[in-house]
Each structure stands twice: as structure tokens, then as C-alpha cells.
């Protein structure tokens, strides 16, 4: 009630027609664009019955794809958490030249097409690269191998965690850290006792977003993968391969794994957001 009267005092009272029209349009749009495809995925996956579905998802290739996806995601989240903390800390707590440039660079992976990111790594680590002989000598394979897929995933999900941390750290300022340092606290103690409690929820939220993005990554991974079935194929690539082979039902079945993972992440996200708000 209080909220309603408040919104009415601001400017003219909006007509109920406009209100319901806007709500209706939004719901319709969401339904057509998001809910319908999701339903289709589940429906198609289960079209030939539950037994066929179970067979499709217990296929060794699908299983290895799930494994690889999870592996790449874990790497991406761990690496980007560490990097994101460092970068956000550096940018907000210190004054230095080129700070703006660093912030802009952090955003680069979002603005560059993932395909290009993939190509960059192919050129950097592939046969035509200057460091290829060195890699060859040490038996290190990046392109068309698991490390390449991890690299691509890390690159694409680069900004997600630092972006969440930056505004929170910015708002906190440096006073509390300074006060702690004055009393003789060392860097790690300061981080653990003062900074971390403050950024906890933003960090968790960043990790959730990073996880979601890492699992769904297709473009950059596709370029670096080489599509070796059962070896360098992630879930999204597996879906593409099955689809290309006209195996629709299995394609949808594998897709449904991604959908379930996404829903789980959404739920985790909501919980994190809710608790974070409560804490404030």
C-alpha cells in the first residue's frame, strides 16, 4: 500500500490500461522468447520416452562432454576469482598511471566476439606461432586440446567477477583498511577481516555469473576445440555435433542437461541475492 501511494505522488497517476498492457507485453515476450524454447527442449528430449532420454544422456560422448564442461568451468571460475580479486583490489585501492586503461581492458572480452578470441589463441599457440616449436618440444598441446578450451573459457568469462567487485570496493573506500594497517594489521589479515566480509556477496554473485557463462560458452571454444569427439568436445559443442548429424532427440537430450544446470544456477543466484540483501 505504502509503495503504491508513493508511486502515485510522483507525477501523474498511470492508467491501469497502460500498466496491464506493459505487463502483458513483457510476459508474452518472455514466454515466446524464453519459456517456449525451454519447453520445446524438454519436450523434444522426452519425445521418444524416458528410456530413450536416459540412453541419450548416458552416451559416453555426452558424459565426457559434461566432464569437460565442468572442468573448464572450474578452471575459469578459480582463475577469474583470483584475477578478479587482484584486479579489483588494485584498481580501487591504489592510484597509478594507466588505471583507466586497465579497467577498459578488463571489459574487452565482453566486447570482442568470442570467435575472434578463439582465433587469437589459435594464432598464438598454433602451428604458425613463434612459440609453437617450444610448446612442441615440451609436449604441450594448447590448440585442439583441453588447455585451449580452458583458455578460451577463461578469456570469455574474464570480466564477470572483477566487474561485480569494482563498485563494491569503490564504495567502501580505503579508510577501514588504513585504520587496520595503522593498528599494525598485515595485508592478509586486513583482507580476511575487513575487505572479504564486505565483498562476500558480490564475489559469490560474480562466481555464479561466471559459472553460468563458462558452461554455455560456444564460440571461442568451438574454434579451439577441433571437435575431437569424447576428447575436446564440451556440452554446447556436443549439441551442435548431434544436431549436425540429424540426431535431434539426443541433441535435445544433451541440451536439457545444460538447461537443468542453468536452472540450478538461477536458483543459486536468487538465493545468493536474497541472503545478500538480508545481510545489508
Amino acid at each position, binding site marked *: 500500500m505504502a509503495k503504491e501511494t508513493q508511486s502515485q505522488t510522483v507525477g501523474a497517476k498511470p492508467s491501469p490500461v497502460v500498466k496491464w498492457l506493459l505487463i502483458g507485453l513483457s510476459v508474452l515476450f518472455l514466454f515466446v522468447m524464453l519459456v517456449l524454447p525451454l519447453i520445446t527442449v524438454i519436450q523434444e528430449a522426452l519425445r521418444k520416452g524416458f528410456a530413450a532420454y536416459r540412453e541419450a544422456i548416458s552416451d559416453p560422448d555426452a558424459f565426457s562432454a559434461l566432464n569437460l564442461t565442468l572442468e573448464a568451468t572450474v578452471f575459469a571460475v578459480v582463475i577469474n576469482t583470483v584475477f578478479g580479486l587482484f584486479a579489483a583490489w588494485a584498481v580501487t585501492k591504489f592510484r597509478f598511471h594507466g588505471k583507466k586503461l586497465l579497467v577498459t581492458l578488463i571489459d574487452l572480452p565482453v566486447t570482442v566476439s568470442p570467435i575472434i578470441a578463439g582465433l587469437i589463441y589459435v594464432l598464438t599457440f598454433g602451428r604458425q606461432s613463434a612459440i609453437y616449436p617450444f610448446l612442441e618440444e615440451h609436449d604441450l598441446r594448447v590448440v585442439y586440446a583441453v588447455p585451449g578450451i580452458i583458455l578460451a573459457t577463461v578469456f570469455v568469462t574474464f570480466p564477470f567477477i572483477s566487474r561485480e567487485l569494482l563498485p563494491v570496493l569503490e564504495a567502501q*573506500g580505503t*579508510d*577501514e583498511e*588504513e*585504520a*587496520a*594497517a*595503522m*593498528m*599494525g*594489521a598485515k595485508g592478509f*589479515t586486513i583482507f580476511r*577481516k*575487513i575487505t572479504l*566480509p*564486505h565483498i562476500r556477496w558480490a564475489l559469490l554473485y560474480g562466481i555464479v555469473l561466471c559459472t553460468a557463462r563458462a558452461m554455455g560458452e560456444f564460440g571461442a571454444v568451438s574454434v579451439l576445440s577441433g571437435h575431437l569427439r569424447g576428447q575436446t568436445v564440451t556440452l554446447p559443442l556436443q549439441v551442435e555435433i548431434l544436431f549436425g548429424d540429424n540426431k535431434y532427440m539426443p541433441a535435445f537430450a544433451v541440451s536439457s542437461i545444460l538447461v537443468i544446470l542453468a536452472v540450478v544456477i538461477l536458483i543459486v543466484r536468487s538465493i545468493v541475492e536474497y541472503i545478500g540483501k538480508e545481510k545489508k
Partner: protein
Amino acid sequence: MYIELKNINKSYGSFKASDDVSFGIEKGKLFALLGPSGSGKTTILRMIAGLEKPDSGEILIDGKVVNDIPASRRGIGFVFQSYALFRYMTVYDNIAFGLKVKKVKKQEIDARVKELVKLIGLEGFEKRYPSQLSGGQRQRVAFARALAPNPQVLLLDEPFAAIDAKVRQELRSWLKEMIQKLGVTSIFVTHDQDEAIEVADEIIVTNRGRIEQTGTPIDIYQNPATAFTAGFFGVTSELEDYKAFRSFEEVEEYDRAIIRPEFVKITKKDEVQKYKTSAVEGTVERTAFRGNCIEFTVRCNGSILTARRELDEPRVEVGETVDVFIYRIFITHGDEVRLLPNNAIREESVVI
């Protein structure tokens, strides 16, 4: 001298925050660093604390040069302007933090925290978080936190800035009392002259990175040593042409003629007055009730001046023509200031 600064210089780019700053502070005294914003007072405080490094010059605490000693080992308690309380720690943990970091025994920490909580009168609030406290309570916690490790020196950056007027008054006397009781050498930064006059044992006036004057509040108020100090204290007004007021010595070269309300006497035409021949006429433009007195804005010889009258004196109305007599004037020339008494007073005392 317990704390001593010798020829300190500090610049931020082309901005000179400290320009050959030197002064000394006796043990156990409460000093105020007073100046307008940008005068370099906070920089001085932060350099003493070790949060900033001077470009040149020496800082001594208890006879030792501390320039290269890190902030945490200078034995200083620092109260930040915004208090910088650890918002994810309780009052207890905030106060205990400095001791925990120093690996003091648990029972000792507990005893010290309890003692301090009692001192600041916040018993029963130990488990609260800073966000659940009022501004005044937060300030007390910040004070206790700074004192917990038994510092030799207590530094406070604008300690009353973030508190509303009524509580501020209360906290001022509280803080003064506490510091006197504990006998810890303290310096606080402020831009509020009333605060400095009321709280400090001695005041250091800063302006544009330099020290203008050091002295007791009374001394600085009554005998300003520089043009800046003369204009900074009290409610000052400036006279356009002081020679238009009678019975003053004529000074050849001067920049400003500064007066305070207590230098001015306004008299109704029908009242008896002592120095009638030396008074000039003025018109009352505005009156304002100030609680314990009435303040008048008077236009006189082209200048606007502020004067006060007691509440029980006959009422003076807006638009009324009154006699204005000025007891004394601060005359400035460059950095110099001179107190010019009204000769009418001197002549009288000579006669007697």
C-alpha cells in the same frame, strides 16, 4: 617538546600542502590544528601518524626521529574523520582489533575492552554493529578503538564533523574531559574556530600550507599575530574606510580594517553614552535574535558591521539611526596585523 616537526615540506604535484612547517607539542596537552579547508592541517596530522611521508624535514616523537618508522609502530592512536569503524565487526571486536593484531593475551584483551566500553559509557552495546549505533556512539567507539593499545599520542581528524549540532556540543566537553583524564598527548584537526577555542589547550593556526600562529585560545583570539588569524577568528566585518570613524590614528599604508562585534558599541540616540564625540551615525538594516543577545547589522560610513546588544537593553528597531562607536580595529598590511585602539579611550585614561 614531545612531538616536534622541523621544517616539514610536502607537495602533491604543484600543490604545496606543507610549506616549511615547524612546531612543537608538549606532553599531555590537547592541541588543535585549525585552518580553512585546503590549509594543510589534515596533511600534517597524517604525516605525524605516518600515513603520509614528508618530502623533507623531520618529525620527532619523544625525541626520536620517526620519519622511517611505519605508522603501526609509532605508538599512535588515530580517529578518522568518518571513524572508519569496521562495519562487519561488533563494538567489542572493533575495540579489540588493535590488541588482537598485537597478539595480546585473551584475558588482557577482554579486561581492556571492558574497561574502555565502561569509559565511553556504552556498556551493553558490545554486541552491536556500527550501523546500529548513533553518530555520537560511533565516535565514542572510534575513540575507544584508538585508545585500546595504549598509544602515547592520539590524533583525531575532524572528530566532530559528522555529528549533528546538539550532540556535537556534548561530545566536545566529553572528549576534552576524557583526554584530560587520560593525559594522552592529543592533536585534533578542525576547521571550526569555536570548536578549537572551546576544546583545545593550544591552537595551531594553519593557512595555505604554513603555520600562521601557535598559542592558547585566548592569546590567539586577542592578539592575532598575522593578518590571516585576525580575519579568521570571531564574526568579523571589514570597514571600507576606517579613517571615516573618529579618533583613530591614521595609518598610511594598510590593506584591511577588521572588526569583531565586541569591538562595536551601538547606542540609541536618547541613551547616555560615554564617547559621543567619537561616535558616528549608522542605520540599522537587520536584527537577529541570537538567544543570549540581539545581533544587529548596521550600515555606517559605507561599511556593513555587526554589533550586539544585551536583551535587557532598550530595543533598537530596523531603520533606526544609532550612534556607532568602535573601541578598536585590526589593521592589516601584507601578513602583518596591528591593533589600533580608539584614542578617545586612551585620552580619557590619561585624564584620569
